[in-house]
């Protein structure tokens, strides 16, 4: 791979200064970035290693009842934190459904949010890709695209965001804390990833030098703990990205759905919050008819971007399944096959 500078700043301020320079890229555990560098897809001239930055590897309970997760907390550590798993079971299940044990041990919260699409044409330096090379065209559009987006895509890019973690997070209104040249700001996670539109190369709302320092789950997020699931259909039982996935979280009061939170993964360039479907469910009885109507509403705007019409049907069925299982109650323990349909029945 090309020669590059490697710096390991001692403070967030130094990191931002280094990360703001042209050609710089933050390096967390590198499970995504190093692959991209080896493939010649990313060619940063400077790596700013953030993994030793102080204070970003903590899980903190804030006074207002929200939870703050440092950007350097490892995916596995977060998922295996017993209190976290109890309060945010769908998030823990999503984390554990992703990648492999080895990758989860390394991967960080910030890196997971910022991981790039798995579109094969994006990874193949020989293909045209608007994300890699604005204006080059999109070889996925008429190519092998059975796993590409069905929601929010444009002719410019039909890629999906691959993160499992982000799907329940966006359902639970997670907030991203960012430090940048202009100081600290925050953003709903829902606004972090952008739909491609005319500018697919602008994947997120981060500006040059922006560093994600933490993720926050608001206090209400815990209110869904008793009825929350993440279900992921994939092409093997483990260690595969989602074909389609769904997070469902419910607050059920007196046998009626008081509030529903729904999001889909593997369908769009961002974790897809299904607000129309949530509205359908608000106040409804938790039954199959309501779930089906909600699922239809969630996919009402979907259209195939290629050989992937089946994902529209599959997404609806996964939503129905996730809702059914969430309503049945969160299992006491995260299932042995997290997120798998085969472990979904009564949390077996």
């Amino acid at each position, binding site marked *: *791979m*090309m*020669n590059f500078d490697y710096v390991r700043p001692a403070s967030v301020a130094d990191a931002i200064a280094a990360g703001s320079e042209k050609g710089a890229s933050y390096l967390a555990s590198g499970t995504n970035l190093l692959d991209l560098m080896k493939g*010649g897809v990313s060619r940063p001239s400077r790596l700013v290693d953030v993994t030793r930055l102080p204070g970003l590897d903590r899980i903190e309970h804030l006074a207002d009842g929200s939870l703050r997760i440092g950007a350097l907390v490892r995916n596995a550590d977060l998922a295996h934190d017993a209190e976290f798993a109890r309060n945010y079971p769908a998030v823990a299940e999503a984390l554990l459904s992703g990648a*492999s044990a080895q990758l989860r041990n390394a991967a960080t919260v910030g890196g997971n949010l910022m991981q790039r699409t*798995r579109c*094969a*044409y994006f990874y*193949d*330096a*020989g*293909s045209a890709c608007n994300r890699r090379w604005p204006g080059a065209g999109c*070889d996925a559009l*008429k*190519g*092998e695209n*059975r796993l590409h987006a069905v929601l929010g895509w444009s002719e410019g890019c039909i890629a999906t965001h691959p993160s499992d973690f982000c799907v329940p997070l966006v359902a639970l209104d997670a907030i991203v804390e960012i430090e940048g040249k202009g100081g600290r700001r925050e953003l709903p996670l829902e606004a972090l990833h952008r739909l491609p539109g005319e500018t697919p190369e602008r994947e997120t709302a981060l500006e040059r030098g922006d560093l994600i320092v933490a993720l926050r789950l608001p206090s209400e997020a815990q209110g869904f703990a008793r009825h929350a699931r993440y*279900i992921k*259909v*994939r*092409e*093997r*039982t*483990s*260690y*595969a990205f989602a*074909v389609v996935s769904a997070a469902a979280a419910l607050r059920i009061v007196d046998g009626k759905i008081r509030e529903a939170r729904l999001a889909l993964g593997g369908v769009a360039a961002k974790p897809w919050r299904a607000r129309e479907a949530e509205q359908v469910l608000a106040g409804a009885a938790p039954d199959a008819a309501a779930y089906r109507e909600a699922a239809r509403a969630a996919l009402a705007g979907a259209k195939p971007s290629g050989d992937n019409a*089946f994902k529209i*049907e*599959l997404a609806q*069925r*996964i939503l*129905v*399944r996730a809702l059914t299982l969430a309503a049945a109650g969160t299992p006491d323990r995260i299932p042995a*096959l997290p997120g*798998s*349909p*085969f472990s979904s*029945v*009564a949390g*077996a």
Partner: protein
Amino acid sequence: MTVELSLTRDPAHIRHGSNIGQPMTRTDGVLKVTGKARYAADNHPPGMVYAVIATSCIARGRVTALDVAAARRHPGVIDVMTPAHKPELAEDPDAKGNPFAFRMELLQSDEVRYANQAVAVVIAETLEAATEGAALLSPRYQVEIARVGLDAGEAYAPPVVGIGNPAEVRHGDIDAGMAAAAKLTDSTYQTPAQYHNAMEPHAIVAVWDGDRLFIDTPSQGMGFAQMRIAGLFGIPPANIHINSPFLGGGFGSKGLISGPQVLGIMAAKLIGRPVKLVLRRSQMYGPVGHRPPTRQRIRIGTDESGALTVINHEARVTTSSFDDFYEPAADASHTLYASPAIRTAHEAVRVDTGTPLFMRAPGEATGSIVLESAIDEAAFACGIDPLEFRLKNYAEVEPTTGKPFSSKALRQCYAKAAERFGWAGRPLQPKQMRDENGFLVGWGVGTATFPAIMFQGNARAVIRADGKGVMETGAHDMGQGAWTALAQISADSLGLDFDQLTFRSGSSDLPDAGIAGGSGHTATVGAAIHNAGAAVIAKLAELATSDQRSPLFGAGNAGVVARAGRLHRRDDDARSEGYADILARAGLAEVDATGSGAADAAAQSQYAMHAHGAVFAEVKVDPELGQIRATRLVGAFAAGRIINPLMVQSQLYGGMIWGLSFALHEEAVMDHRSGRILNANLAEYHVPVNADVPPMDVITVDEHDPHVNPLGIKGVGEIGITGSAGAVANAVFHATGIRVRNFPIKIEEIVMGLS
């Protein structure tokens, strides 16, 4: 340069009496789990530098420019090997000296014949510098439209398929068979391109010393490799010393030396220093062979009783634009089912890929999944249980040749595996079974078969003055356990306890053991060892029985047996003499003898020789989401004499997992416009992970086969794939009622089929 390996000889490995049949653990196991087993790329001779291949990203056309200057400017880069700057070769790499000399790209021109083809090699002091140098070459191309897939061009009848098999075989009257059919199933299946993906990528460390060449490289066929390299570089084969003690898997891709390995040798020659070249994972998707995609139409006719009237199996396969290898997919229909009329035929299409080659069960795997699925369709059409249907059409003699089988315990395989699985009571109709959680459950069966093949191999046996023995053979351990199983045969052949034996292998300086392929290595080399051992024991016996001072005097050669380092008179066991004493009295430091193993042509002309098996699979399918999971696999196999049950079980497990992979996971995805492979990595090229592998049961059924070879060995390396793939696919049908004819079975077919 044979290295002495510290192979395990601890008490667990020492036993008296016969070693064959014992479940010994691997003698190289400790070396492997402690990281001391030295694979090719682990070598680092003094002065060694690194070579990295620059590969083409187009599938067809020419390289019009390479920025050699930019690569050379990069710090650490020593040289850039290109068509314009490379060592002369003595032989055209496109010459076709023999059918096994497959054409390779050694920078002989600027032509690009497939994606991932080598277009230059950068040599540098470090791997990083060579890698970046290769990137800096930024090739420019004149691109031609790539020919991709089974419909890329005009199909033609290949001259032969596999290794010299006729492209079309007819047995009986096909038209009459069709006419006699009360029911005729007619279906077309597709199987995808697959790539070997051994854990260890192809690697070579090459050192020239004048016109002698020393190489460390994983090889399943050192003798073949020597010949090819000798031809290319114009040196005698004996000048080439190949060291290949361990392979991290080969599966056929290391059977013949590949272009990239030869490029490493050329790079070392070009700069006059030792060179290491290791392929990146993505670079293995092109120059080292693959299993080509197939489209197979199969028609099966049955009469009123469910007896077969005809099997007509046609396959279309792809081969490269520049060479000929034809996956003999339809040949799978030759041996298994008793049909009065059988036709198999192949046609081929040229595409812009590397040349397809042998990949674990080449032809058998692609053909078996289709044949077993089609047999399942025929059974279903007749309303007969698929196991009963197979028994009804059981071949008592090989259908296409009429030859009796040298041995065939397939009936016992069906019975034992069916019983273990609990097949009885399976509903005939699909979509009848659910588990307690509501998942659809399906059961499927497939028959496994693989020919008992032998190549030509040699061994040398020595009994030393101290009474201990040595067996030498340039065999290949691909992970299957040759170090152990062949040593077991060696100890028995020499009448020695296991700890009294030095077993040398894995080097071309030892007697040529032939190719480790076709599941024939243990049979071939085992026979060579057996014969070498017998020959050296005969020499010892000759010494003893003709010496008046020996207690064995006068016993005659046939009158002694070798056991635990002594010869005993057959008629009087108490009269015996130790090997050391015999040699001491004769004043000899050692006696040695060679032996060879090869197929017995006379027996082959009389008998059909195959291993067989029966595999039963259970799958569960999510009734709405369509996700499939195999939950049980039971296989019973009859494969002649079992040398080491532990190794055999591992081979069969591994094969059955490949079968599962074939049915549900594995596929190289190719862009239909560019001909580039889009998932040339282990994240996206799916093979089963642990969570996909169900509990498995392997049963071996005893088979005494006096005809295949002196030890009665058939192969076990490939048969596990056959039968298993079809069993899984049939179980999916039984669970869902959906017959997917495009492998691997994809979720959309099930999701949309279930709605």
